[in-house]
Every structure is written in structure tokens, then in C-alpha cells.
């Protein structure tokens, strides 16, 4: 599956330690893998397996204790917090299980928020946010606040926000965890379409096999290590 071009994500010997009262807890014990641009990857594992820690590192929300993480060829594990913030803003879109929209802001303002931190002026922000809402089919709800929207609609607003600054990578943490099966299917179909038609790289954390089945590649974590890494074709075969 991986092409000859440099991978979008390149992880070598990634380790993360957390100090605890009883000593050091090793959340990640040496993870090495590549994710190419345009891949759709599902990350699976029990809680405590290290998958959340791994996602936090991929999302530049945290720095590894040891190891190398290159995003788009750039080593990011030693960047300052301001540089990491800029990287998150430009290169990464987040979709969370609990949607994480700001409840006091309208759908439009929520979607425009990353553009605010990108330094875009107000008019441009609103236009781009409006077009993102149109892409998720919510352009008529742009002035509703999250509480006036259904769960599925809220997640679509969150996806529009993740897409707003046109990132290359979208990280989704249990994006269907709070949705019913019909809405889950719609959200996953939308993700697939994004991946297929726009070549956006998707990394998705889930513990549900049918959600993971949308991905082309599945990576399973256990005790801080990768224990399974197979493409869809391999699994079928």
C-alpha cells in the first residue's frame, strides 16, 4: 500500500513514560511504523493499550519521551509548544468522541475557530467556514448552537471544523462512540468519501470491528506495543 514517496507519518522507536507514585509507567514501549499520505488507518486496542497515548503524540498534543516522530518529513518531537500549536492548526484536524464543540458559539463560529488562530480575517473566516458546513450538509444550520443540533449534526460540525484549515491529516478518536448505528454509518461513509475523493489521510481510534472495517489498514495495540498491523486485503485473504 505504501508508495515510494516519503510517508506522511514516520515513527521510529517511539516511547512514552509517565511518572506515577509507584515509579514509571511505560505507556508506549517502542513503536515504529509509517503511514503514507492518503491512507485510512484504524487503531484498535483495549483501554490502557497505549493507543490514546499514541494518538496524542500523532496529534502533536504531547511529546515522546524517546524516539522520533516525523510529520511530513519534519521531526516534530522536539518542537516548542508554539510550533506544535501552529502544526496542529495547519496540518491536523481533530474529531473527538464527545464532539468538543464550544457550546456558546454557533456552528459557523465553531468551524471558523481554527481559522481565527491561523490569523485569517473575519470575512474570509466566515466564508471558508460556511463552505465547510456546506460540505457536511449543514449550511442551513450555520447559526444554530451545538445544543440545538442532534448528535450526528454536532459530529458533522466537528468534522467541518477539522477540515476548515484544509489539513492533510485527520485524527478521529472514537468518532462514532456517542452516535446510534444509522448516524455512525453516515459519519463513516463521509470519512470514506473524504479519504477516497480528497486523499485526506485518516487515522481513527475505535474498538468496534465494524467501524474499523471502513479502514484499509488496522493497527492493534497491546501493552504499549503494536501487536498487529494488517491491510484490509491481507485480512480478507
Amino acid at each position, binding site marked *: 500500500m505504501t508508495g515510494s514517496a516519503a510517508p506522511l507519518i514516520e515513527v521510529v522507536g517511539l516511547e512514552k513514560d509517565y511518572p506515577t507514585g509507584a515509579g514509571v509507567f511505560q505507556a508506549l514501549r517502542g513503536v515504529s511504523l509509517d503511514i503514507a499520505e492518503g491512507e485510512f488507518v484504524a487503531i484498535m486496542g483495549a483501554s490502557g493499550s497505549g493507543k490514546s497515548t499514541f494518538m496524542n503524540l500523532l496529534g502533536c498534543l504531547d511529546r515522546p519521551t524517546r524516539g522520533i516522530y516525523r510529520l511530513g518529513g519534519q521531526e516534530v518531537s522536539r518542537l516548542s509548544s508554539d510550533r506544535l500549536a501552529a502544526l496542529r492548526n495547519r496540518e491536523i484536524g481533530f474529531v473527538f468522541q464527545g464532539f468538543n464543540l464550544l457550546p456558546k458559539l454557533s456552528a459557523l463560529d465553531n468551524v471558523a475557530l481554527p481559522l481565527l488562530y491561523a490569523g485569517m*480575517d473575519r470575512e474570509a473566516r466566515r466564508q471558508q467556514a460556511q463552505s465547510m458546513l456546506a460540505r457536511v450538509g449543514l449550511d442551513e444550520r450555520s447559526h444554530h448552537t451545538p445544543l440545538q443540533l442532534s448528535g450526528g449534526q454536532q459530529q458533522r460540525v466537528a468534522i467541518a471544523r477539522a477540515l476548515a484549515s484544509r489539513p492533510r491529516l485527520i485524527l478521529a478518536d472514537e468518532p462514532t462512540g456517542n452516535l446510534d448505528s444509522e448516524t455512525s454509518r453516515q459519519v463513516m461513509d463521509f470519512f470514506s468519501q473524504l479519504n477516497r475523493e480528497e486523499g485526506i489521510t485518516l487515522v481513527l481510534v475505535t474498538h468496534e470491528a465494524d467501524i474499523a472495517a471502513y479502514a484499509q489498514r488496522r493497527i492493534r495495540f497491546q501493552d504499549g506495543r503494536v501487536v498487529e498491523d494488517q491491510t484490509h486485503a491481507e485480512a480478507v485473504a
Partner: protein
Amino acid sequence: MIFSSLIETAWHALTAHRMRSFLTMLGMVIGVAAVILMLAIGQGAQAMVRSAIESMGSNLFIIMSGATSSGGARIASGSAPTLTLEDADAIRALPDIVAAAPVTPGGAQLIYGGVNWSTSVYGTTPDYAVVRDWTVASGSFFNEADVRRGARVVVIGDVVARELFGDEDPVGKIIRIKQAPFEVIGVLAAKGQSLDGRDQDDTVMVPFSSAQQKIFSGSLRNRARFIMVQAVSEKSMDNAEAAINDLLRSRHRIQAGQDDDFTVRNLTAIAETAASTTRIMSLLLGAIAAISLVVGGIGIMNIMLVSVTERTREIGIRMAIGARRRDVLWQFLIEALTLSLIGCGIGLLLGIGGAWLVGSLAGLPVAVTVVSVLLAVGVSFLIGVFFGFYPARRAAGLDPIEALRAQ
């Protein structure tokens, strides 16, 4: 992040919790209003004292008949008049002295036509106009010859002129004081309130001798309750005071070791004390008001800290989608600043309105100065920055992962 967006974000956050924002601001509102009002009252009081001092005349002594104490027993000054017209003449002849005016004060009813008015009557000499630096608005003051021959002439104050004559010109008219007819020869220029709050324009002056005979019926035996003396300069006042003491002790034949039968008071020194007392008072008022401003600032810090705790998740979300630490810092700092400056604006309006109300109800000459307004705005700004910085830094220092996990 663009500045206008910061203001917009702060405005969103503040209007989302209107009641809380209002209560937070209340401390600043009251603080600023108190500062403006207290400074206005202080400035007004100082202006009032300053004009009273200016109206009193400069480099003044007042010599009272009688001692302040005699053999350990206190005796009210002026209870037994011991000073004479001749004492005043002798004092005037001293070096360093410009003028000396003996005064016998009293009260009397004035009648003009069908109108009457009770006021204070001063029997004195033309020197009184000199020491008090008092000019006539129309007509003239009486002269030495009027005093010598006990002329029945009177110079009336601005208030008396208005009450007795209305729009009529008083000069040349005859009024009755204790049944005796007196000709009005002059109207004094208005002076306003004295240091002790009396209206100085509600008075009339007649020649010393005329007052003795016609108004006090000779009961005072040509004695003066007090003599007002003006020295040539402030520097010469100490010398002049010593010379007056020596002169009066020898004229009154007071032996060494005997108590004076007069008291010399330096009015200029008393006035300066009054002025500095007022200054200290207004400083004190301002300081107390400033404390309430600081308390208002602490209120803002309190609420901002609560707000940061409550909005931890929001901060996490903002950081995840690309807010740098300084963006978060600015967001909360601008919120605190907006609160304190809006509070300051409302406080200014209340303070200025309150000052106007106090001025018109209590008749105090309050003065809201540009300096006090700038001071209030400047201090509010500093308080916003100072008390907003700690909560803002706390918000900016949050770990995005933990912040996202917060409920």
C-alpha cells in the same frame, strides 16, 4: 491572532454570562465611582478653603482682648475688652506693620423703608478695608475724618444690599440702625464664605466711634474686642508678633511674670493649617476610595480564576485546534481588561453624576478634573492587567491533553 478577534472573543465570553460579568464589574464600578467622587469632593473642599484664605487677606494677625488663660483658669478671649483705638494706632506705628484696625463686632437690626434685616455690625477704621484687602463695589469706604467725628455713615455688604435694597442703588440712602439714621456711602465687593463657613457679605461696617456711641451705647468705653493687623510680608511676621507683644505689655503696664490681657494669633498660620488639613483629608478620602478599587480588582481575579477552571475544556479544545499559549493568555487577559474598563466607564458616569448631585444638593463646589478621570482610567487598566495576568497565565499553562479530559 488578530486583535479585533481577541476583543470579539472576549465580548462573546462576557455576554455569555451577563449576570456574572455584571457582578464582577460591580467592584470596579463602585471603586472608580468612589475615587472620582472623593477626589471631586476633596478638590472642591480645597478650592473652597483656598478662596476663603484668599478672601481673608494676607499676613494677618488678630489680637484678641483678654488672655486665653489666667492663673490656670481658662477665660474666653474677648470677655473683657482691654484693647483701645490708641493701641491700634500705636501698633500701626511699629515697623513691619502695614495697617491695624480695631474692631467692635455686634449685631443689630437694619431698617430701610418697610424692609428690615438683622446682621452683624462692625465698628472699625478704614484700615479694616486694607487688612482684609476688601474693596467697595460702589460708593466708597469711610475715612479717618469720619472716624474722628463719629459720622453716621455705613458701608454695607453685598448680601445686605440685596436684602434691603433689591435692585435699588443703596449709595446715598438712609437706613436705621438701632433707631439711629445712617447714610449708606458704599457697598462692599462680594467675598463669599469665610474659613469657618460664615457668609462674609452679610455684614455692615460703621466708623469705630459711631458704633461705640450709637450702636453699643457707650457700654464698651471705647474698647475694641479685637484688632486686626497686617504685616508687610510673611517673613516679617515673627518679628512683628514679638514687637506687638512688647508694645501692648508696656502700654497695658503688665509687669514681668504677669499674664497678658490680650492674645496675638497668627491667622495666616491658622489658614495654612486649615489648607493642609483639607489637603490631607482629601488625600485620605482618595486613598480609601483607591482601596475599594483594588478590592474590585481582586474580585475580577477571583471570577477569572473560577472562569478558567470552569472553561478548562474550552481551553483544551482551543489549544487542540491551534491556539498557542499566548493566544490563550491574551484571551483571558483581554477578558479581564474588558471587564475592568467597562466597569471603569460605568463607574466614571456614576462618579461624575454623584459629584454633580453632591455639588447641587450640598452646595459644595465639587470639581471633577481631567487628571482624576485619567487617574481612574489608568489605574483600572493597570488593575485589569495586574489581576487578569495570573488567571490568564494559569489558563495558558494548562496541558492540552488534561484540559481536553476535563468535564
